[in-house]
């Protein structure tokens, strides 16, 4: 479903990587590996379509992602280094707003359930600025609970999470893969995920 061929990434004057190829099908997890600054985030952004590779092409269901445009974006869920939450809003408001912008249907009840699942029960109505680092990350990750899009792109989701939360997120990813979803993941922690198959791609 997701194919990349001969990708090259150039940042400033530096070629981060080149000749990267991979192919990912339903139920598969791509585990992006590489040290700090090896270009994992850059590759993920290319897969999103946020930036264009210096060379090579990325296809989704056989078509170039640039051509697909909105149809591709409708099947994709990206979580980056930044949490994309507003410090002024409460976790509940954040979750509802991000669902609306992503054109998903989520009612308040579901959102509250999702927040409870990620361990934010009792903090739904506290502005996010008061939350701890890990709790903020949990708000961002609460999106995944009801996310049914085919392709998940997760950039170091486990950062700042405690062991229990890491377990939980790994479980969510596993369930997604078992539903036949695809996921691309970067992380510096070793976490087990139950998946149809895990492909590893090492940058640099």
């Amino acid at each position, binding site marked *: 479903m997701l194919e990349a061929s001969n990708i090259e990434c150039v940042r400033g004057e530096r070629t981060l990587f080149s000749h990267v190829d991979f192919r990912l099908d339903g139920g598969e997890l791509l585990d992006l590996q590489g040290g700090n600054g090896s270009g994992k985030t850059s590759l993920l952004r290319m897969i*999103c*379509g*946020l*930036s*264009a590779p210096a060379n090579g092409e990325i296809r989704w269901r056989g078509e170039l992602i640039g051509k697909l445009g*909105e*149809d591709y*974006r*409708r099947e*994709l869920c*990206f979580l*980056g*280094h*930044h*949490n*994309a*939450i*507003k*410090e*002024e*809003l409460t976790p509940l*408001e954040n979750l509802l*707003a*991000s669902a*609306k*912008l*992503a*054109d998903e249907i989520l009612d308040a009840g579901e959102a509250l359930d999702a927040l409870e699942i990620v361990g934010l029960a009792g903090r739904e109505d506290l*502005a996010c600025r008061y939350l701890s680092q890990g709790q903020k990350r949990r708000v961002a990750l609460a999106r995944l609970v009801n996310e049914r899009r085919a392709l998940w792109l997760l950039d170091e989701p486990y950062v700042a999470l405690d062991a229990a939360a890491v377990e939980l997120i790994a479980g969510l990813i596993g369930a997604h893969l078992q539903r036949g979803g695809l996921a691309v993941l970067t992380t510096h922690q070793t976490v087990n995920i139950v998946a149809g198959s895990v492909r590893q791609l090492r940058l640099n």
Partner: protein
Amino acid sequence: MLNLIRAIISRDLRLALRRRADLVSALFFFIIVVSLFPLGVGPEPELLRKLAPGVLWVAALLATLLSLPRLFADDHRDGTLEQLALAPQPLGLIVLGKVLAHWLVSGLPLTLLAPVLGIQFDLSGEALWVLAFSLLIGTPALSGIGAIGAALTLGVRGGGVLLSLLVLPLYIPVLIFGAGAVDAAVIGLGAQAHLSLLGAMMLGGVFFAPWPTAAALRIALE
């Protein structure tokens, strides 16, 4: 489509309400500038009446200009902008929503307040109407045009000034026609011609500007 725009507007308004600052700051700035002038210039009513259209319009323009850098910067910093760019809808529409929200938060309050301040300057009833109306159709143009500049300078070295440098030339026509309309009303001439030009600018600013803005945002995210 309308749904999306509504969602954006309601989110941005809620944020503005939560921050309060955004809601009042443009307004407050406007009041300050307008009321500082009599302090700096002296109290002669004749002089003040002559100054009024210029001062009021310049203040409105500055108030908008100042709120521009934050239009996309917060979303950019916390990663929301990426999510917006990845939303399965045209980015231009999302920008349109943000422009409208910006206007609701900065332009509309100005418009409502301007006549009150205009009284301070001893403007006639007719002139006050024209003032309010010219701001009503002029400020959306300011928001729309400003969005282009805000997007172009997003994350760029020297953003703030660059933004003024880019946007200001495009604002000057709006200023000239806006202040011109009020001036005409003060002198007793018809403000019709000025106002219809302003109207054209507004349509351009609101419905055309979001598209270059969206393109600029995609470039900024690269």
